[in-house]
């Protein structure tokens, strides 16, 4: 039986890597991928607790989180595509003015 703390530690490490990615990345698509990494780390925490408390609510919540992440990915990538169309760049540092 793998202890709960191991799963929580892995989840913390993945979440931290995601946060570091969001802070240092300049490519907006990779930045978005780091956000998805953070969401997955949280999913792991929820499922681990669901197993160790014997409670199904954790897994039901993970289902909802996945659906929300899917919707967010679709809309986010559409925004990125129109951002690319308007500014010809995917670098977030260059998208710092509201005016084109």
């Amino acid at each position: 039986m793998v202890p709960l703390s191991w799963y929580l530690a892995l989840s913390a490490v993945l979440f931290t890597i995601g946060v570091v990615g969001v802070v240092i990345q300049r490519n907006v698509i990779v930045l978005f991928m780091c956000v998805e990494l953070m969401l997955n780390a949280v999913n792991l925490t929820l499922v681990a607790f669901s197993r160790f408390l014997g409670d199904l609510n954790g897994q039901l919540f993970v289902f909802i989180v996945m659906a929300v992440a899917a919707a967010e990915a679709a809309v986010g990538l559409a925004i990125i595509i129109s951002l690319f169309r308007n500014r010809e760049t995917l670098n977030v540092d260059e998208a710092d003015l509201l005016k084109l």
Partner: protein
Amino acid sequence: MEIIHLLFLGLAALAVVAAFNVILQRNPIYSAIGLIVVLCCLAALFLTLHAQFIAAIQIIVYAGAIMVLFVFVIMLLNVREEESRGDRQKYLKWIAGPLFIALLAEIAAVLRLVDTPAPAIANPNQIADPSTSLGTVESIAHGMFTDYVLPFEATSVLILMAIVGAMYLARRGSQAEMDRIEKALGGQGEAEPSTADDHVAV
């Protein structure tokens, strides 16, 4: 040390290496592949946590649909490797290092307190009613359509909103809008309206 511990350590190490790959690679395609590897490792870890349905849904939805979307967008927008980034505030990493060690120490101290024994989960193939075993499709269906039916319906409305929003945002603009964008970018003489569109045409 049992085989399950070795399995966990192997999968966790692969997930962490792939996650570092996501943030450190120059080419966005390699970052996307790294994220796919992380998702598959997490699905395997969900299987060790008796979450069969969530593991299958993770692969189908996350690795099989969302990441395909990401990979398509990267390929269609023809995203190249980025040039090296300049480091503007070099002193920050000297503050970040010790803070990171302190945070790790705190996490290690807290995590030792949560190890409680876990309840036993029945094998769904050996009992008569699989909906009493944690993590099976029947049990999730039972919970989803009794306690969580309102979030379920709200999620379907959310996905509908996402479909409409994505279709509207990614449509081609009218000619007037294209001309305005072209002018604002300091248009290149007699260029065709928005050559960026060629990247998105399949």
